[in-house]
């Protein structure tokens, strides 16, 4: 059975480095890559009645946009370079959802990029990398 590597990808500089790293690894091992993109979302936020009404339409739109601008170009690039790849596009808490994607895909590891900031906000609320490393069911590689 081929192994699966999940890459957290949001289109940023660092996530591109993570993707390259994963692609190299996948080629060497003959593994496949799951490109995972998570749209930050909490079911416990407060919305106005109009926002409730429009939510379904907005969600459909957001998914379409993420798929066409973020996921699709990357999948093309990967298959062009001969790496088998698929994608996972989900809403939720970023670290938790990446864990869930890894479990669903039966992944052997998760690779994400390092954001490299140590701002106050990160100290207060924790970083995605930090929480993922704590909670992930499989090994996590953080690419600098």
């Amino acid at each position, binding site marked *: 059975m081929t192994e699966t590597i999940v890459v957290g990808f949001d289109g940023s500089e660092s996530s591109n480095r993570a993707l390259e790293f994963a692609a190299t690894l996948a080629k060497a091992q003959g593994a496949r890559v799951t490109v995972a993109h998570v749209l930050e*979302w909490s*079911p416990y936020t407060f919305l106005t*009645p*109009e*926002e409730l009404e429009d939510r*379904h339409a907005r*969600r459909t739109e957001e998914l379409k946009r993420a798929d066409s601008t973020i996921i699709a170009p990357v999948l093309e690039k990967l298959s062009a370079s001969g790496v088998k790849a698929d994608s996972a596009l989900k809403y939720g808490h970023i670290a938790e959802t990446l864990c869930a994607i890894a479990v669903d895909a039966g992944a052997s590891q998760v690779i994400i990029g390092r954001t490299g900031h140590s701002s106050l906000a990160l100290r207060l609320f924790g970083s995605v990398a930090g929480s993922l490393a704590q909670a992930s069911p499989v090994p996590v590689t953080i690419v600098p």
Partner: protein
Amino acid sequence: MNKKFNLSALSAMALIASAAPTFAQSIDEKVNEIFASSTGWFVSLIFSPFPGTSFPWIVAWLVIAATVFTVYFGLIQFKAFPHSISLVKGDYSDPNDAGEVSHFQALATALSGTVGLGNIAGVAVAVGIGGPGATFWMILAGLMGMASKFTECTLGVKYRNEYEDGSVSGGPMYYITKGFDERGIPAGKFLAVLFSIFCILGALGGGNMFQANQAHAQITNVFGEFPGWITGVIFAGIVFAVIVGGLKSIARVTEKVVPFMGVLYVLTALVIILMNANMIGWAFGQIFAGAFTGLGVAGGFVGALIQGFKRAAFSNEAGVGSAAIAHSAVRTKEPITEGFVSLLEPFIDTVVICTMTALVIIITGQLISDPETGNYLLNEAGSAIATVDGNSGVALTSAAFSSAFGWFKYILAIAVILFAFSTMISWSYYGLKAWTFLFGEGKTTELVFKVIFCVFVVIGAAANLGPVIDFSDAAIFAMAVVNITALYVLMPIVKKELESYLSRLKSGEIKKHV
């Protein structure tokens, strides 16, 4: 009807614009006079008592309905309570539906429409007139009202309209039309139209003028007297910016701050109650004694009961049908789940928050009683209980909280303004949904309603409490007349949904996702 509304809206605006600078104070009086004389008949129709008694038929109507639903669904509000909590927590939500409206969000939005001045000012009115005993009846009405809310919100989701762009419109006008058709009962369309008319009036009354009025009362209470139309114009401007100008940022800030204010309010009330821990037993004694004897209030124990029931209904809106509009946007395959979630609403609103307000007013000794007989003393007019500084309405709540924490009246002023604002935004939406049901969807029709809504903000802030609160009540209760009639017809449909859901829950077909 459309045209008439337009004309009166325009003339009211012209009146305000032309006369504002010079005749400020007299505008207040003029608006008041016109208002009181033009709505009086409607108010007396809704609140007329049973012949030979002082018991308004509308109060009986609501209580009987809540009792019928409670019995018909086998005390659903108590049995399903734990399941409701786990639905709100998201235990049963499919993770693949993340990004859609969650049960929590639908509940929070509906709550921010109901938690508001009813909980602060309304309770003070109830306790001020009906005495501590009104609290007992208010809690009882809140508990029973949970069953009414369950029924209407299940139907709201089941019979909502889903459009191609993914947006949804739901509420009593839709379930009355479709549900009656389904059961082959005529007059559905007629009742739906009637409901929509009352809903528009309720949106302009309780959802708008009452809010503007009490917000103004609280502002003058803190900053001193000034004419009501000034508050009205400022409020109307902000509401206009949000609902017409699409300034989402203001609404967004309010929706985030309001829950925080609600929590702060309850916590402060709890602290005051705990500071007077030795009085808690006495306060509940007063509540129970007052519930069955009245303790000297106007109208005796019936007076207490009427006030309690009235205020509970006005605060949690169970049976009114408004919540069904807000709840219908949730994403769920099972309409009944939204019914379960919505039954928490009267609980939080009335059983928790309203009771807190009442306890603080009672415990801080705002109501004056005769030390010899233990009965409450009436004010000079004999219409309400005498209070320490002669306060009533929101000023009474403010005085009660300030007696413990002097600074609280400023917090309360901010809370009242924000609550008033968020309730207005919610009700402008409810009113709009009824309006588009009647006149069709479309930018121009929607704009007409929104402008009328803003004009009524000014009228509400300028009118006296008396005529405004009476009209607010009347309009909201008129919605309940139509809605509950429909609920009686449609409740077997809800029962079928309930039985099917419960059996699948038991068999394990519906399971938790965590």
